[in-house]
């Protein structure tokens, strides 16, 4: 019998709270919540923790930033290149907080690095979710929540990038202004609405400030809460493996294992961001100077996550794509790269779970993740998208590639123009082949086991290599997956020759489904495994008592 413990101070306080709120039940429930273990499940955590760092450092920055475009003169001594210059109050306060406020520059740099890492970790996290099929039912809504958060993260990044009102950010806003103006009919009105008159006006910084510190983070916090709530509610997905099914969760309890791991990870994220902020300079706005619409310096690029739009703009041929229709100009050379390209990207992003469910004819719940190889077309599409993204991002850096690798900037542009179309197709084909190849390799392994490297010679002179069978865990991983076949549809006419509605739409979907699942390698069935086993044993017996009978018996051999 355990001795009755004297209540501690903490215990008393907890009891007081519990008697009034029954919070003990929630703590008990949550502390025992089981999470599966894998490093890639921590990618989203990195995003969450960099968001926490963003909020904390951003809070500090708002204490010193002045969101105003009123003209002031900089009287500070540092940096010397800014002394006495006319600038907006926003730029003034940015320089001032960097050079006069203790820790201000560190906080600014931490904030900016955290922003880059925030978006980067979101993207990597999304790729993990995409390639492992974690967006399937019941998690489609959570995928959408995540995708909206990605858009908000980009918006947060862009509004923040534009706040200091330096030449670099002003150039970025000018591009946005041009893109907005290229929208047919409403373009110029929208631009005037956004900027409160002709670009740049005097309103854009305060407006972006409100969005950046209030609207966007508010929405992000709400969506993060929803994202995490849904994750807890639906339980975390798990990688395939022995004993893991769609009906269970194999892992460790939140308390103490994940509480410890998460706390550790938080300090690592905060530490790495602080280290970066302390040692690597980022966005030295005084290098660019206060905004003035006339200068555009070489090497003007957006932060990495907008690079693909900038790159698409640089790849788009100019002449011949500006159509004048009835006295109105339609700038296809802006519309295509700046609105249609991101439009395609985000449509794919938002629509994918639904597209895949439709062409798979899949209405089941999934809690066990896919190995990327087992969904060749999905994996190949992801890689193709990544290649297109990287090609566009590289195009935005064409001037730096040219100077750093002594290349001709026009040649780079042409190579990337071709690559933008050829690269994703090639990447798709290659990835799909690699996936199918890996699946065949898995089949082979399951049916015949590992090569042991042990060669046995029988009395009749025949040589065989002994294969070791896979253990249960290894086999489970390789045979326990769905390999969907293309959709089967009901024929056009029924038994009595009556045509049915919706046949043509079904046919179209079937075609898409064939694209997804025509090439498939099905997992080894128990019957096939049995056949392979007996075949091997049959061989062994036929080999007329091999010399090393004891060691070979029970081992399977290659067919």
């Amino acid at each position, binding site marked *: 019998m355990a001795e009755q413990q004297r209540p501690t101070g903490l215990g008393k306080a907890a009891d007081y709270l519990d008697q009034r709120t029954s919070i003990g039940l929630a703590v008990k429930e949550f502390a025992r919540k089981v999470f599966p*273990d*894998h*490093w*890639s*499940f*921590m*990618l989203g955590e*990195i995003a969450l923790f960099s968001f926490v760092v963003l909020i904390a450092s951003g809070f500090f920055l708002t204490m010193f930033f002045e969101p105003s475009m009123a003209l002031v003169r900089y009287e500070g001594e540092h940096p*010397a*290149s*800014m*002394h006495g*210059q006319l600038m907006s109050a926003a730029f003034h306060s940015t320089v001032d907080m960097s*050079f006069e406020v203790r820790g201000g*520059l560190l906080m600014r*740099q931490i904030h*900016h*690095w955290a922003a*880059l*890492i925030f978006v*980067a*970790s979101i993207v990597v996290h999304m790729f993990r979710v995409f390639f492992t099929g974690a967006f399937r039912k019941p998690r489609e809504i959570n995928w959408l929540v995540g995708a909206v958060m990605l858009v908000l993260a980009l918006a947060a990044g862009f509004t923040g990038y534009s706040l200091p009102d330096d*030449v*670099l950010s002003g150039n970025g806003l000018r591009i946005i202004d041009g893109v907005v103006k290229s929208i047919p009919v409403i373009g110029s009105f929208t631009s005037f609405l956004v900027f409160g008159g002709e670009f740049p006006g005097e309103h854009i910084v305060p407006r972006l400030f409100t969005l950046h510190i209030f609207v966007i983070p508010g929405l992000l916090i709400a969506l993060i809460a929803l994202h995490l709530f849904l994750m807890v509610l639906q339980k975390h997905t798990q990688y395939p493996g022995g004993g893991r099914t769609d009906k269970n969760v194999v892992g460790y309890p939140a308390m103490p*294992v994940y509480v410890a*791991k998460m706390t*550790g*990870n938080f300090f*690592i994220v905060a530490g*790495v961001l602080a280290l*970066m902020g*302390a*040692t*690597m*300079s*980022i*966005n*030295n706005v005084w*290098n*660019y*100077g206060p905004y*003035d619409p006339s*200068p*555009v*310096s*070489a*090497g003007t*690029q957006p*932060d*990495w996550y907008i*690079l693909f739009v900038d790159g698409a703009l640089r790849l788009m041929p100019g002449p011949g794509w500006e159509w004048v229709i009835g006295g109105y100009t339609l700038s296809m050379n802006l519309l295509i790269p700046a609105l249609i390209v991101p439009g395609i990207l985000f449509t794919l992003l938002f629509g994918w779970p639904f597209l895949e469910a439709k062409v798979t004819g899949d209405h089941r719940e999934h809690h066990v993740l896919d190995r990327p190889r087992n969904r060749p077309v999905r994996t190949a599409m992801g890689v193709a998208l990544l290649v297109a993204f990287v090609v566009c991002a590289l195009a935005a*850096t064409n001037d*730096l590639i*040219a*100077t750093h690798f*002594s*290349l*001709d*900037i*026009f040649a780079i542009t042409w190579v990337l123009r071709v690559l933008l179309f050829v690269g994703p197709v090639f990447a798709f084909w290659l990835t799909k082949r690699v996936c199918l190849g890996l699946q065949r390799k898995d089949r082979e392994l399951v049916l015949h086991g590992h090569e042991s490297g042990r060669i046995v010679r029988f009395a009749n002179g025949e040589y065989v290599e002994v294969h070791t069978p896979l253990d249960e865990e290894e086999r489970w991983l390789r045979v326990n997956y769905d390999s969907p076949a293309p959709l089967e549809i009901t024929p056009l006419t029924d038994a009595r020759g009556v045509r049915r509605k919706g046949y043509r739409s079904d046919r179209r979907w079937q075609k898409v489904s064939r694209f997804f699942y025509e090439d498939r390698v099905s997992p080894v069935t128990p019957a096939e495994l049995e056949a392979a086993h007996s075949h091997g044993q049959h061989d062994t017996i036929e080999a007329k008592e091999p010399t090393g009978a004891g060691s070979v018996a029970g081992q399977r051999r290659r067919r």
Partner: protein
Amino acid sequence: MKALAARRHHRMAPVVLLLLALLTTGGIYAALAPSTAKAETVSTADIETGKKLFQANCATCHGPNAEGTDGVPSLVGVGAASVDFQVSTGRMPMQTNGPQALAKPPQFNEEQTAALAGYVASLGAGPAIPTDEQVDASLGDPSNGMALFRTNCAMCHNAVGAGGALSEGKFAPALWETSERNIYQAMQTGPQSMPVFNDANITPDEKRDIVSFLVEQREGSAGGNALGALGPVSEGLWAFVIGLGLLIGAAVWIGAKSS
């Protein structure tokens, strides 16, 4: 000595030896390498020497009397500043044909360069080599230089002079290592793709302000490593390589820790 002898088979011994060897060679090089001498004013007597040098090294392309040939500019009236810039940065004599003449270790020493400059200057009036006072960065106003640089230079040379790309393989070089005199001369004479910024366009004082701004940039960034001062692209690259690299590494490590 005994302790040293005992450790000579230590596995770190070769590394230590290698480091010592590198240190020694580096030290000797630093001590003995030719240092750049001060530019001198050239006397008229040197013009003859300059002419001889010109005819031996430059006349093939620029013509025996510097009158220029097909596709090669005449040097009459380019002035001493232009010759000094081109020759002291090693761009001339040109080594190979390419999108543009590249800077390389200069082929001529200070006196020879001065003689060549004197000879070309004697052919026709042109911008003279700036005086030391004209290019003294400490006398300039970096703030005004910043404003001028931003408006006139940054579109090719990058906001702080880190360099940038031009068309067809040509480029505006980085200005980190360019001497104050050469920066000034480049503005005066507009070498290669660069436009001329004459004294009416940017006054000598303003040119010095620009030099002063560029020299200030060499002190590095207040925020730590400047990452090449290339802007968001290099920042994004390092965010992935260092930031996300460390964080994913840490995630793998935490994930591998037994629970």
